[in-house]
């Protein structure tokens, strides 16, 4: 492998000695919210399928979705969707080659965190 040029690359973070930063926390939250949304999606699809199946099945599913448990899951899903939405837009900005310097990346990070709360509150007011 004489011809492969050795270059100094950034090392992967070693989690036991890693100081969490805004950029790393907002990154892992993107993954958690995105994958977590499958829970809310399955709940909504179950509710739709129950509506299609008949009045009794719908009564059961609707009781779950409108209960305090359903409220919590749907509210968390709403925030997760808002967060993942903004974080996804941030990825599209990064993919276009912009905003990759640290000050801008940190500003975008706060934008995602604060924006997700604002969007969630707005959505609750609209709905």
């Amino acid at each position, binding site marked *: 492998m004489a011809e492969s040029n050795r270059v100094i690359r950034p090392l992967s973070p070693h989690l036991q000695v890693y100081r969490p930063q805004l950029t790393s926390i907002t990154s892992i939250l993107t993954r958690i919210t995105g994958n977590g949304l499958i829970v809310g999606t399955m709940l909504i699809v179950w509710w*739709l*399928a129950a509506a299609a199946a008949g009045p009794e099945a719908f009564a059961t599913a609707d009781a779950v979705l409108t209960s305090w448990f359903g409220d919590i899951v749907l509210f968390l899903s709403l925030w997760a969707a808002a967060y993942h939405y903004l974080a996804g837009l941030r990825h599209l900005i990064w993919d276009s080659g912009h905003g990759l310097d640290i000050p801008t990346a940190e500003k975008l990070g706060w934008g995602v965190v604060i924006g997700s709360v604002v969007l969630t509150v707005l959505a609750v007011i609209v709905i």
Partner: protein
Amino acid sequence: MRYLTDRKRANGKGAAHTGTEHHWAMMVSSVGLAFLVPAFVIAFGRGLGGTHAEVLAFFSRPFIAILTGLTLVASMRHFAKGAQTMIEDYSQGTTRKALIIGAISLSWAVTATGLFALAKIAL
């Protein structure tokens, strides 16, 4: 001495051993979802909380039914590929394969169930 171009040396050395199709698919579905999700969230918020008859009437409306179906298909394709990325980051070997198959199967099962429900309600 082998005469190889830089491009040829790098080919296949990426973590995925393939090109950028996966990433491109995520970009395409994310842009689609950027338009679909806000509309669906508002629509679903309006639809939830009604009686059985009201919910059936709401999801029978062509716009609402198409919006729900599109959001479901696009989001489940996006989920399958996103979950696959996560699984590939944290697991190896047979476990990785089993989890990826599971995630893709789950996403198709949710898609099929939702589309069947929509068809039954709307048609």
